[in-house]
Every structure is written in structure tokens, then in C-alpha cells.
């Protein structure tokens, strides 16, 4: 015999049904398994380190330059102490991630940077030049060296500087494809190197380092592809779950099973509550499982990451409610799902690349979610850094969730 039933009991019964329906659908199951298996696999297949070294070409060789300088300085009557300072000059040793390649002529250096001449290093450490257009063979057991930047010092540079000459020109060659940041950084380096060699500050202002390094200085600890992809993968899990959830809702609406529910003591609000809870829990639990596989939670960021994931899960559930109620069939549902999810994916892709996202990307609802995820998992962002973005995300969450809720409520009531 039936007895009065509480609203939580009805929602619980609906949740159990959702779980059964979800677990019985091969498409949903396959999607879930693919996500749970593929995402960690992709993550671990990505490079977990960054090649931070920059190869610097130089003319003349350091030994030649110092040798010339020594002769000139002796003629100028330099003391033993001053001459000993020459021995301390070593450009490559003091710069982390810098490999130095020395050339015998400026023309050679220029050709190598330009790419018309190839530079190879054999296993024995010998450097070999190859003129491809002249028909030179590729050296055996050798690795090609591609200098990013070349520096050509004028003859008797050190002696000239020591003599107080001001019209000395150091030429910096860089490949056309080298980024502006690296070019600027290398110019700074050359000025610093010249300063070290000359023993005095050159009449050129050094750029402020803050304009070159964004956020924390991660020299020696650059963001690897794995780190960049971690928030993106978490975001993808939420996105995939949106498809499953929307499909589950759509099936319920199209097969009118919801109508049968609503002629029992269950109300539309119970139905919506169950869908919301189920969608959020499914998204969140999968995201947490993925997080366990790919790492990223630390003692300082776990609460922030969990919060933003919960917000993301609810936001995407709202989208699923909307998509599920809008599609009249599978194709319709797919269309609406793509219509919503593709724009939401744009911020996730944009944050993978360094630089500032375009203003229109920042307006998208998923931007604050992915931004907080990236900042927290990659750059050690804290609650204090994230408040603004969380508030922005909350605004979008309210808009999207209630839009989805309204759309599904209206759909169900008019069946």
C-alpha cells in the first residue's frame, strides 16, 4: 500500500533510475569509458619536459676574442689583475639553457642562421658545414645544430671597449621565425654579455624583465605540454558529460517517460532536481577520477580546483538541460550540443597557448572556469587570485543553469 512520500525520497528514486538508465546505455557507457581511459593516456603520452635551451651562434670565438683582447690590453699597459678578468669571461657557462656555437667568419654565421648553410655536429664533437645547394652529402652519425640567434662582435671588440670607443656595433642575427619575446630576450642577453666583456654599462637601456616574463619566472621550470593540457582535459571531461546528459534528457522527453513520472506524486521540480544532481555528480566524479590520474591537486589548490570544477559541472548540466530539451531528435540534439559546446571549447584551446586571450574569448562562459583551472593547476593561482574570475563564472553559471532549467521545465509541461 502506498503512503505519503517525501520529496527527497522521490528525488532519490529518480536518481536511482537515472543511474540505471545511464549504466544500461551503451553509448553513454562507451563515452564514459573512452574519456576515463583516453584522457589519462593522452596526458601521459604528452611531453613532460620542455627543451629550454637556446643555441647561440657567435663570431669570433670566445678564445679568439679574448686572445686579441689580451694582446691589445698588454700593449695598452694593462695590469695582471685586469688581464686576469679576461679569464672570467664565459658567456655560455653563466646562462642557464644556453648553448654556444662559435664560427670562424661572420658570413658563415649569417648563412647558418639564414639556413642556406647547415651546421652539423658529429658524435666526436666535430662541427661540419654542409652546403646543400652545392650538393654536399649529409654527414653520418651527426646531429644538426640550428642556432636561434647569432652574435657577431666587431674585430678587437674588447680592446676597443677598453679604449673607450663608443662606435662599436654588435650585430645580432635571428631567424625570421624566432618569436618576438625570444628576440627581445636575446637582445637583452647581448647587451648583458657586452657589458660583461666591456666591463661597463653600455649606453643602451635594458628592458624591464617584467615585460618579458609573464607571471612567475619559471626559468628552469617551464610549463610542459602535460601541464598545459591538464586543465584542458578536465574541461573536456565536463564537456563530454554534457553530451551524455543532454542525450539522457532528450530520450526522456522524446519517449515521454517524463509524462508517466508526472502523473505520480513526483513533480517537475523533483524531475529537474534529479537531473541536476545526477548531471553534476557524473561530471564532477569523472573529472575527479581524471584528476587522480593526471595529478594537479596540491595541498594549496585542492579547494579552489574542486570549487571551480563543481561550478563547471553545474554550468554544463545547465547546458545539458537546455540542449536536451531543445533537440527534437538525435540530430537536433547533436546540432544544439555542437552549437553550445564548440564556442565553449574556444577558451580552453586559447589558454593552451601563451599570451593574452582575445577580448571576445574572455566573454565566453567557459573562460573564467578554464582560466581558474589553468591558474590553479599550472601557475599556482590561489583563492585571492581567483575571486574575480569565480564571481564572473558564478554569473554565467546562474544564467546558463536557469536558462536550461526554464527550457526543460517548459518542455516537460507542454508535452
Amino acid at each position, binding site marked *: *500500500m*502506498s*503512503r*505519503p*512520500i517525501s520529496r527527497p*525520497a*522521490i528525488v532519490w*528514486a*529518480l536518481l*536511482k*533510475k537515472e543511474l*540505471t*538508465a545511464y549504466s*544500461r*546505455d551503451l553509448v553513454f557507457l562507451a563515452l564514459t569509458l573512452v574519456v576515463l581511459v583516453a584522457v589519462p593516456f593522452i596526458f601521459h603520452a604528452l611531453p613532460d619536459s620542455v627543451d629550454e635551451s637556446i643555441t647561440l651562434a657567435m663570431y669570433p670565438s670566445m678564445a679568439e676574442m679574448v686572445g686579441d683582447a689580451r694582446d691589445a690590453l698588454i700593449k695598452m699597459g694593462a695590469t695582471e689583475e685586469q688581464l686576469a678578468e679576461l679569464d672570467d669571461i664565459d658567456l655560455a657557462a653563466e646562462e642557464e639553457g644556453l648553448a654556444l656555437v662559435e664560427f670562424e667568419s661572420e658570413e658563415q654565421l649569417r648563412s647558418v642562421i639564414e639556413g642556406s648553410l647547415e651546421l652539423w655536429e658529429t658524435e666526436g664533437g666535430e662541427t661540419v658545414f654542409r652546403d646543400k645547394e652545392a650538393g654536399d652529402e649529409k654527414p653520418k652519425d651527426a646531429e644538426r645544430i640550428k642556432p636561434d640567434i647569432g652574435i657577431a662582435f666587431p674585430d678587437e671588440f674588447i680592446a676597443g671597449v677598453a679604449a673607450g670607443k663608443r662606435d662599436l656595433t654588435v650585430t645580432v642575427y635571428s631567424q625570421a621565425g624566432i618569436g618576438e619575446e625570444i628576440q627581445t630576450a636575446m637582445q637583452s642577453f647581448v647587451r648583458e654579455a657586452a657589458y660583461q666583456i666591456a666591463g661597463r654599462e653600455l649606453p643602451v637601456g635594458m628592458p624591464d624583465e617584467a615585460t618579458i616574463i609573464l607571471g612567475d619566472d619559471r626559468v628552469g621550470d617551464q610549463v610542459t605540454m602535460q601541464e598545459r593540457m591538464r586543465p584542458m582535459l578536465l574541461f573536456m571531461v565536463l564537456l563530454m558529460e554534457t553530451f551524455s546528459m543532454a542525450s539522457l534528457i532528450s530520450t526522456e522527453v522524446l*519517449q*515521454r*517517460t517524463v*509524462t*508517466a*513520472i*508526472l*502523473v*505520480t*506524486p*513526483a*513533480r517537475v521540480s523533483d524531475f529537474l532536481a534529479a537531473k541536476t544532481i545526477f548531471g553534476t555528480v557524473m561530471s564532477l566524479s569523472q573529472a575527479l577520477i581524471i584528476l587522480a590520474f593526471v595529478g594537479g591537486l596540491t595541498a594549496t589548490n585542492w579547494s579552489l580546483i574542486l570549487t571551480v570544477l563543481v561550478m563547471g559541472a553545474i554550468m554544463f548540466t545547465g547546458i545539458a538541460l537546455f540542449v536536451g530539451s531543445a533537440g527534437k531528435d538525435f540530430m537536433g540534439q547533436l546540432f544544439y550540443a555542437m552549437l553550445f559546446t564548440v564556442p565553449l571549447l574556444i577558451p580552453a584551446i586559447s589558454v593552451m597557448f601563451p599570451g593574452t586571450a582575445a577580448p571576445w574569448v574572455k566573454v565566453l562562459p567557459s573562460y573564467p572556469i578554464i582560466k581558474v583551472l589553468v591558474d590553479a593547476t599550472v601557475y599556482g593561482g590561489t583563492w585571492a587570485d581567483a575571486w574575480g574570475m569565480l564571481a564572473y563564472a558564478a554569473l554565467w553559471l546562474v544564467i546558463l543553469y536557469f536558462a536550461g532549467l526554464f527550457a526543460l521545465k517548459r518542455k516537460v509541461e507542454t508535452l
Partner: protein
Amino acid sequence: MTGPAISVENLRFSYGDLEAVKGIGFEVQPGEILGFLGPNGAGKSTTIKMLTGQLTPKSGVARVLGIDVSTDDPALQARIGVCFEEKNLYLNMSAKENLDFYASLFGIKDPDSIEVLRRVGLADRAKDRVKTFSKGMRQRMMISRAFINKPDVLFLDEPTDGLDPVTSASIRKTIREEAERGAAVLLTTHDMFEADELSDRVAFINEGRIVALDTAENLKLKYGTRSVKVRLRDGVGVREEVLPLDGDGSSAKLAELAASPDLMTIHTEEATLDQIFIQLTGRGLEG
């Protein structure tokens, strides 16, 4: 309870400018089966949706088990069972899981789902997923779902539509058992035979209005013509004579034909509900 299980007075509903139900009124007593007959678009489903709380009436009063349907009181749904025309079952769940789920929405802790399935002949398929069921089996599932909470009022929308005669007879028997238990049944159907056999009373609804409401017998007496069909041998063929029972001289003519050596058969002829509906509305029930 005392009084009617369903009580409807001047009930109206509109979809925008289209008035689907135009001030209907009727009552159904506990244990009574009321056949609700009408073509598609006549207002049958809209009426059921209002009585089951799916739609709110624009005006008028409708009470089911004494509860005003416009109050959105879950106590109403706790005591009714609904069988929809569309087979809205969870196809990936088994028959028992479907019934257990709906029972849980009524707060039934240990539903006797197997017994309910046995009543509709599906106990041996209790663990099979509904997607493997035939159309007839799904329809029986729909009926069993409507019974799961032992409702005091049953709303059955085309419960035997498209089923084979054996399954239809089985379902009709089950519906009759529910009425005998004391449940009031509001039954919509296109099947005149079913309405005639099952319904204690019949309501004809057309264009949102009830045009006739009485027992099938009374409707036939009131609106139909009584006649006798006599078949006689006529050389190598057969001759038929139809004699109106209410006409002058019919009795004498019938006695004469009955005494004929060529007499083959005599049948009483009575109007069908379909004919009466056409007579009353100018249109058929299938429209």
C-alpha cells in the same frame, strides 16, 4: 469514500485560441467504468490530462476522489493510475525494474511487481528488458504500471489499441477486475465493441462537448432503430428482409415470414455505438 470518484462540472480548456474542451460535465462512481468515446481531437486526452493534473483547467471544477485537480495536490496522483496511449516505458530497464521504479515514486517499499506482472501474463518476462518486448507485451506492461499502486481511479487511454483479440480480451478482463475491486475507470477507446462490452456507461464527446451520456443499452434504445433481419431461400439464391420492430404491421409480416418454408435464419438487428455516434455528430469515431 462516499460520492463520485470523478466529478466534473463545466470544465473548459484552451490551447491558445483553440478551445479543446467546452464546458463538459460528468461523474464516475467507484467501481464504475465510463467509456469516453470520440474521434481524434475531440477533447478526450485533454480531459484526461486535466483530471490527472497534467493540465490546469481554464475554468470549471473537476474533482478526483474529492480533490480539486487544479490544486496540484500530490495526494491526487498517489491514488490514481494512468495508462497512456504512447508506450512511455524505460526500454533499457526490465519489466520488474520499470514497475519497482514507479512503485518507489508512490512510496511503496516492497512492491509486489511480480504479482502485478502475473496479472497481465508477464511474470515469466519480469527480468527481461522492455526493449525486447512485442507491442502487445509493452501494452500489457503499460496496464500493469497503471495498477502498481492499487489506484482508486484508473485513467486508461486506448488500452487495447492495435492488440490481437486474445490480448485485448485478457486486458479487458483485468480492467473489469479492477472495477470489481472498487476502482473507478475512465476509459477512452475507438473500439466500439470494447466500449460496449466493458463500459457501464458511455459518454460521446465531440468537438469538446459531451453530446450523449448513458448506458450503451439506453443509447441504443434512445437513438438506434430496432429491426429483424430474415433470410429466406429464393430459388438458387438468398433473399433478405429487414423489418423495423417499431413499424406498423411489422409483427404480422414477421409472423408470416417465420412461417415460410423458405425461412433460413432470423436475426435481431440493433444500432451500433458507431452508428449512433454518426447519427448524433454527423461524423465517424475514426475521424
